[in-house]
């Protein structure tokens, strides 16, 4: 098997880096098992996580142009290096108030099913890797038929990370 050039090469590099990291920490944390690789971000005081595989990049918030008669929860469109990116107002989607832009606001560019969208968040905390066993289902009382996008809650290093199903939260299944 010869390594294919191009984007696949970058992939295998990443895998190699992951492997190195895993080997180097193996001694101190002997907890292999399945892991979750997440990008976490803040909305109000809570921390949310989405799979890193779905994140293309994180950008500073540029000028967002409102689109008349746009769908609910669409903040507008922005210029991503010459391409038009739709930006979703994830806060209102989750029942919070409309985002106020601050210097820490970011747009996370995500790719779900060949579609690229931006989600506007209050701030991006970091990229984390945590054992899958730290995830528990959210208490039933907090979920409802309209809130079907929470896949679980991770308790990790005294943090609480709410895991989101991007496809559902972005209403891509319609």
């Amino acid at each position, binding site marked *: 098997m010869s390594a294919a050039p191009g984007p696949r090469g970058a992939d295998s590099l990443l895998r190699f880096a992951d492997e190195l990291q895993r080997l180097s920490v193996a001694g101190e944390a002997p907890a292999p098992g399945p892991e979750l690789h997440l990008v976490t971000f803040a909305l109000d005081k809570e921390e949310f996580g989405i799979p890193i595989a779905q994140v293309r990049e994180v950008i500073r918030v*540029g*000028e967002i*142009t*409102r*689109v*008349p*008669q*746009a*769908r609910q929860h*669409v903040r*507008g*469109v*922005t*210029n991503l290096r*010459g*391409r*038009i*990116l*739709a930006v*979703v107002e994830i806060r209102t989607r989750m029942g919070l108030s409309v985002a106020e832009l601050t210097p820490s606001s970011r747009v996370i560019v995500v790719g779900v099913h060949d*579609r690229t*969208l931006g989600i506007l968040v209050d701030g991006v905390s970091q990229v984390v890797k945590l054992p899958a066993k730290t995830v528990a289902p959210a208490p039933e009382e907090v979920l409802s038929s309209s809130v079907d996008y929470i896949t679980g809650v991770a308790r990790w290093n005294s943090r609480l990370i709410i895991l989101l199903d991007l496809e559902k939260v*972005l209403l*891509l299944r319609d």
Partner: protein
Amino acid sequence: MAGDDNAFGELIEDYIAECLPLAEQVGDAFVQLERRWREGDGGDDLLAQLKGRLHTVKGNSAMMGLAPMQTVAHALEDLCAVLDAERALGGDEVGSLLVRGSGLLIDLIRTAAKAPKPKPAEQFVKRVRIFLDRTRSKRTTSKRPGLLLERRRSERGTAEPATEAGDSSSSVVRVDFRRLDVMLEVLGESLIEQAAVAEQYRMLVRKLGPTNELVDLDRGLVALQKTMKRLEGILMETRLLPIAGVFGRFPRLVRELAEAKQKQVHVVTTGGEIPLDKAVLDRISEPLVHLLTNAVVHGIESPEERARAGKPAEGTVSLRASSESGRVVLRLSDDGRGLDDSRILAKAESLGLEVQSSDTEQVRSLIFLPGFSTAEQVSSLAGRGLGLDVVANAVHELGGTIAMESRPGQGVTFTLSLPVTLAILRSLIVEVDHERYAVPISHVAATVRTEPDTVHQVNQKGVALWRGNLIHVSDGGALLGTGAAANTSRRFYVVISMGSRTRGILVDRLIGHQDIVVKSLDPAVGRPEVISGTTILGDGRVACILDAGRILDQRMSA
């Protein structure tokens, strides 16, 4: 292995690109031939062209190992050869065989990428054999054409490929259309960058005044703008194809439909030489097929019904293309039964729509509404309305407009006005409540500076006197939902118009004219009615493009 597959895929693409137009020309010519026979003309010139094209298709198919296409082309070639030798055979039976065979050939070639099914080809070849055998007895007695046939074919085998090759001049290069798309994209980016530089220049002038250096810079910018304009023109021209490419398949399509519906329909096309951007051509083909199908199936009456109405038994569907003030106008008419306004009106009332029956234009525009056209009752009652919203949507997405005219008993005419190209749109940039919008110049009739008392309120709607007529002037902020309080003190209004419809839109500022690069709207944003797409302005900001055609069409009130 994968490499081989790709190479084969490319070959197949080339094969389709070369053979599909040939097969379509053949199909078209057969329909013409049939017509000429009916008029007592032998159509010799047509037969000669046909044989060359069929021969090329046969040869290419054999090279690709595509047996079904090869045998069908071969059988058609045989039929042509027999006809060439024996003119008297020309008639409805052989005509129907030829048209059916060319249809099959086109379908096979179009789907050549998937392994073609041998069955339909075998069946067709069998029918040709039966026909040839049945007519042979007559022929052998006269001229022994069997032998003649063999000889002719062997002569042609060497002669014709040479003439075909002679057609393709060495100064012509074939380019994958996707490359032209990429070129256009790059040109678009350059245009945006150019606008950005121009904006920087204006800022510098404001700051420093017109220094000598800046005057030089301005000269350079103007020269650059001119060169870019030329480059744009050349690239646009490269993308143009004659509309005949789309028209080509219509005679055959109509013939098949008419046969299925037991009607006699004859197609007339004019203006096939008018050029259109390939991207527009690709997207207008389906809507035209839709309208054509409607015309044959619902518009044209049966021969008996036509006779009773004192019309010729054969109906006519005409498709005329023309260039009108920088746009391409397509008129598709039939001489069928026409639409019944009273029935449309009745249907509208039953749907609870408020319509003024005196406004025929408004009545007609109803048939393009989605809920309306899918209503089964209408299509059976009025015989029309089937999926016209789909057609209208496709036309609007292209930045075009569609209108319908109907005279009961005399037929229907659809008029489509399309931009020659999609990609670059000359626009007026306006500002409403600090938001910028692009209005396609093709729809802008005028811009008017408002004075106190220009715009009056009638029934809470703005009305102004423009060129002697009272027109409705809406507030841009309300129309676009900017969220700002209604504002009647805006400084300008832009008059947009199309056909007889005219409307004003109040805006705060006129920024200027700009060639914008159209970027389609992500469906995730929704389907706004007032916006047709987006573009990136010189300062890097995204602006929405007003869908002037739809704003005028739908009488949106604000």
